[in-house]
């Protein structure tokens, strides 16, 4: 039997005057992820603890948190990686809080929706079979399509903290995902959504977002590309 000590930031805005940290000792055998540790606490020690979860395999983006001062997915973080000592678990900072480790993601998804996150094309002229796409064109999508919308990048971005309307790295990465898709024909349709005071110009390439991303994606690269595309379109009216 091994033991891990969890120090968890607790706050229920409905009933608590101020946040506090609670400490729990979790016994375990073999291996323990932070998410498993949280479940053990919720089941055995404190039924009021709450956090988000679903896949427990780092693909759904539910369990993003701030663990020992870093953005991580709780399910993907094994306590053995944390090199002993207390495991400090906090909600993603700079986001409104619902309770304990659960942040309010309403704005995050509203911004996602704002950039028209779907393929835009003249569907009446679609072929019966697939729209051809070369492996080379498809490769451009490799990075942005792996985004799991966990929100780590968004929470880490100083431009989001400073300007609540800024769309932030995840939404812009999604815009990029469609803009670089050879099948997308949005042209100028999606442009006003990111070529404005809410969009790409708020990004000062501080790359906190790149550091924060648990899927090792690069939102900054996407944003830089969008900046270039916006300039090209303004100057030449060209699509890609």
């Amino acid at each position: 039997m091994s033991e891990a000590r969890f120090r968890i930031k607790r706050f229920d805005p409905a009933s608590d005057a101020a946040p506090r940290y609670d400490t729990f000792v979790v016994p375990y055998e073999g291996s323990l992820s932070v998410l498993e540790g949280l479940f053990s606490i919720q089941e055995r020690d404190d039924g009021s603890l709450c956090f988000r979860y679903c896949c427990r395999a780092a693909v759904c983006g539910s369990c993003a948190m701030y663990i020992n001062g870093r953005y991580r997915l709780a399910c993907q973080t094994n306590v053995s990686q944390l090199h002993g000592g207390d495991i400090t678990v906090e909600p993603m900072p700079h986001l409104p809080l619902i309770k304990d480790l659960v942040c309010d993601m309403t704005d995050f998804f509203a911004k996602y929706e704002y950039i028209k996150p779907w393929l835009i094309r003249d569907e009446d002229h679609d072929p019966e079979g697939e729209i051809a796409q070369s492996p080379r064109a498809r490769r451009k999508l490799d990075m942005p399509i792996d985004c799991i919308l966990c929100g780590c990048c968004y929470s880490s971005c100083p431009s989001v903290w400073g300007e609540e309307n800024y769309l932030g790295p995840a939404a812009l990465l999604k815009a990029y995902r469609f803009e670089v898709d050879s099948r997308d024909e949005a042209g100028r349709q999606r442009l006003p959504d990111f070529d404005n005071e809410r969009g790409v110009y708020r990004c000062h390439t501080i790359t906190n977002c790149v550091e924060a991303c648990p899927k090792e994606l690069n939102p900054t690269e996407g944003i830089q590309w969008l900046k270039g595309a916006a300039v090209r379109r303004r100057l030449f009216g060209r699509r890609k």
Partner: protein
Amino acid sequence: MIRHQLVIVGGGLAGLRAAVEAKGAGIDVAVISQVHPGRSHSGAAQGGINAALANNPESHDDTPEKHAFDTVKGSDYLADQDAVYQMTQDAPQTIFEMEHWGCPFSRYDDGRIAQRPFGGAGYPRTCYGADKTGHYLLHTLVEQAYRRQVAMYIERFVTSLIVVEGECRGVVAYDMIRGGFEAFVADAVIIATGGAGRTYANTTNAIISTGYGAAMAYHAGVPLKDMEFVQFHPTGLYTTNILMTEGCRGEGGYLINDLGERFMERYAPTVMELAPRDITARSIWTEILEGRGIGGKDFVYLDLRHLGERKIAEKLPGIRDLAIHFEGVDPVTQPVPIVPSHHYTMGGIDTDVDGVTAMPGLYAVGECACVSVHGANRLGGNSLLETIVFGRRAGRAVVSFLADGGAGRPAPEAAARAALGAVQERVDRLSRAAATEDAYDIRGEMIVTMKQNFGIFREARQMQEGIDKLLSLKERLPRIGLRHAGGAFNLDMIRTIELEGMLDVALATAVGAFKRTESRGSHARTDYPNRDDVHWLEHTLALYRPDGPPELAGKPVALGMFEPQERKY
């Protein structure tokens, strides 16, 4: 009280596809989901989705008929053949539609959708996006739902159905964000809540795949079908049961025992590692039982090293990440310890090809339903297909139902209030109870019982013990209580309510398995090793009985295209 024409419980592939269909026909539809739809378990699917596109050079003469045959044979002849044919016929169109909506499938040099070999399939017909196919398909449908402005109630946990004079007219849900319960009234309800993997201790499924949605229908009197058929996937990671896709073997991976043998040679000499899942899982388990697990332990190796770093990076990048993060081994340089793990719930709410259930106004689709297209053993790549094909059909069926007199009859306010009151009372009772039993203990004992007594190999005595155990847990259940009452994001309450459903779903599996005195597909009995078409070429229906085990009945299988034969690979 919230009102919509159609309420869909579940925002995975099945629920979203139904929503997009109904919304497109002008229906006022709402999706209610426990997690943001983009976080649904469909997103965890890795390997791919089947359709006879004949894009792979080796599959140029593939057809939907051949796809249907492989599916029926894979099902050990328990699938309904008309439903299978419907699905395989619709498959190519389904793939093209998802592609037109932006799904980033992997491609061949000529720009067409790439296809890989999968177990039990005569041709390479599994379309894929690297090893993240479910994530790409799910995000594509989420995007289409946003595009069509489908109303979404996110982080609402549905607790029960509102039934008025035997017809389903809405649901009650717990609002996880604000706390408290709400009634949603509607003309029709579709349940699309996914599988029941978490009734087993060793599952690849998400933590929210509890089977609770199926239990809601079951408790309301709708039969569950074929629950004894539970798929064990050959390759779950040893420590966590996280899936390593069949695509690993489709791309050429080997299964290796302690002696370094590719042991599948003994069990399926022609197709080797690409035998269907039931056969491969049993082969691995036999190796382990006979002491040829690695170091005599209960796992074998999935060896991908010979594929090389480049192929792994291109075709199986997610697998590599998972193995590194969750098992601490890099498949490029090390073999991966794997063990057969509970993976898929073939059974579910009894429906026809349009998602219609025994209760007017109630539809079901996706893994929580049983059409049945998988019969006694599902082929890899057919489940994603099922969710989208039958999601669309269920959406369309509701549109016709509303047009043909089903519209304008949501639950009256009094009925909604009564249903709301019933849930509230149930929860109040749980919060007041002086608990003498612990819900998490019961949950723990249940999942271990399912793993040990209703696993890959089954036998009467062991199953009888398992049933006795489950019944004793059911008897203890009324003595549990909540540790935490009220408020937002009350996980204790959600997980306690879930348990009540899970236990009944588990019992349906257990009793169905005990009664079926034959071996078919995933249901392998050491005391009845042969398939028995004379007595058992029929579906099992389980009817809920509050105070004991379910009552079972049979239902004929739709045959007609393919004569049942012995299944050899």
